[in-house]
């Protein structure tokens, strides 16, 4: 698999250099230590939001650093959780004294590394609260596995809790908003092709021409079920059914129609139309729709659907201004 890279070992560092070059108004990047920090951090009187995870999901998380969203992001190697040192250092850099919320996707690696980091940061006097995303309904919560993955829902938590922090809410409140979003959010993903990590240079799994994977995560792993190729409408039927039957929303939802990286926007918008059709059939009202490649798996072709049941407050916070590399409004 050809890639636009120098050498596999340097992809993350190279991307961080590019991020620094492209967004000097927005970000400070410590390429060596792999920390991306909001330019004006620490912001006095504001709770800080910190997230991170393996690289390869861009724009998540570094693309969401900025006013109204994250204060810091800690990118790990491709598909590999960052190490505690990054989070500890970043927490120290963004903490204004009001404390830091860790936004963590539920993967063993992320949870273990963030847990260690929280302990170390608290040893250094930083107040830490953690929210763990488990939005992927493809995984069952029967205790027979590491549990539901954090996927597209992360964007909703980072945006909405970020807005609450920007408004000046204290840590307990920001954390409770974050948890409320996390609990109100569900996702389901589909792969049409596997992705290739730079280190491996070949697709992470074989997906024959006529087949797709239902219930994938965002790490190039195979899904729960392989099926003969489906139309956009059939995929929307399956994905929305999985999400809605788990979430059972009774108020309008925020909808993220997310591309996995290599699916053209032309196809993604067509898929968004089918998702809207299915939601209408199921009498689920859509308050807001976001379409794009936001929580990706390198060059995987495919998509995911995330719904967040939003009350008035969450909706207001979703609509609040934000200024980041990948999501911007009102600033």
């Amino acid at each position, binding site marked *: 698999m050809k890639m636009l890279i120098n050498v596999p070992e340097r992809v993350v560092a190279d991307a961080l250099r590019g991020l620094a070059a492209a967004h000097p108004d927005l970000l400070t990047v410590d390429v060596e230590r792999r920390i991306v920090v909001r330019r004006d951090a620490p912001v006095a009187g504001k709770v800080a939001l910190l997230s991170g995870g*393996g690289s390869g999901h861009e724009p998540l998380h570094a693309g969401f650093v900025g006013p109204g969203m994250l204060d810091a992001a800690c990118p*790990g*190697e*491709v*598909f*590999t*959780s*960052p*190490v*505690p*040192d990054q989070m500890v250092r970043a927490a120290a850099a963004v903490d204004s004294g009001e404390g830091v919320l860790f936004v963590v996707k539920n*993967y*063993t*690696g992320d949870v*273990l*590394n963030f*847990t*260690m980091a929280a302990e170390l940061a608290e040893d250094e006097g930083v107040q830490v609260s953690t929210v763990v995303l488990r939005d992927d309904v493809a*995984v*069952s919560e029967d205790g*027979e*596995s*590491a549990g539901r*993955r954090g996927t597209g829902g992360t964007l909703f938590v980072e945006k909405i809790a970020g807005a609450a922090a920007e408004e000046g809410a204290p840590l307990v409140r920001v954390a409770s908003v974050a948890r409320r979003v996390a609990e109100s959010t569900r996702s389901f993903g589909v792969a049409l092709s596997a992705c290739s*990590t730079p*280190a*491996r240079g070949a697709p*992470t*799994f074989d997906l024959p021409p006529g087949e797709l994977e239902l219930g994938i*995560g965002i*790490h*190039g*792993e*195979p899904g*729960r079920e392989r099926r003969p190729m489906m139309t956009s409408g059939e995929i929307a039927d399956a994905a929305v059914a999985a999400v809605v039957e788990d979430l059972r929303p009774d108020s309008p939802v925020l909808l993220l129609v997310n591309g996995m990286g290599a699916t053209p926007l032309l196809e993604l918008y067509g898929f968004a139309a089918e998702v809207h059709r299915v939601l209408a059939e199921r009498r689920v009202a859509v308050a807001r729709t976001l379409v794009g490649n936001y929580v990706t798996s390198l060059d995987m072709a495919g998509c995911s659907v995330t719904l967040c049941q939003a009350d008035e407050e969450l909706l207001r916070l979703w609509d609040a201004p934000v200024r980041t590399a990948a999501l911007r409004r009102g600033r």
Partner: protein
Amino acid sequence: MERDRAQDGGAPAGAPRGAAGLDADFVVRWLTAAAAAVDREADRLTELDAAIGDADHGANMRRGFRAVTGTLAEDPPATPGAVLALAGRTLVSTVGGASGPLYGTLLRRTGGELGTEAPRVSSAEFAAALAAGVAAVGALGGSAPGDKTMLDALVPAAEALPESFDAARRAAVAGALATVPLRARRGRASLLGDRSIGHQDPGAASAALLVTALAETAAEAAGSPDD
């Protein structure tokens, strides 16, 4: 399966003869051998992880163990406990993923049990410390043997270690191979459900490499008492 008989009480057979137990140098040589094995087998580990994980275990382990040998070469601590603690901290700081905190905890806790003072520890003390380290891995990961993780190699190895280093090696290798038919209950592979069945767990495979390196280091030390 045939097992070596323990030769003297609780001390593993094949432990360095002559010298009163294991010193910092022994641990450094073990970790250096482990790093070489990981380097050599990194692609295989990554392939195993590609099948039921995210294709990075080889790269993760290589990155971590290169850092460990680098750190130890620069400024090697004087006691086996301190070497292990430093190596564990290095793994935590460089590996990431699930394996970083887990292997980091394994070495840190093993080192912690030995303490930073003693310049030499007996094979029995070492075996007990390693057992505590392995237990800490299970506690951190919320996992147990049979979950198709590194514990399936580490737990039998720790149990066999009082018998002999080579028994530990054989137990680890057997434990790793025995993960093939298991359904993963922890870590990334568990997200695949039944599709995790039929593949060897990459962390169990790397654990077998580490224990093999330990046994080989012990055998070498036993073969060259004046080393």
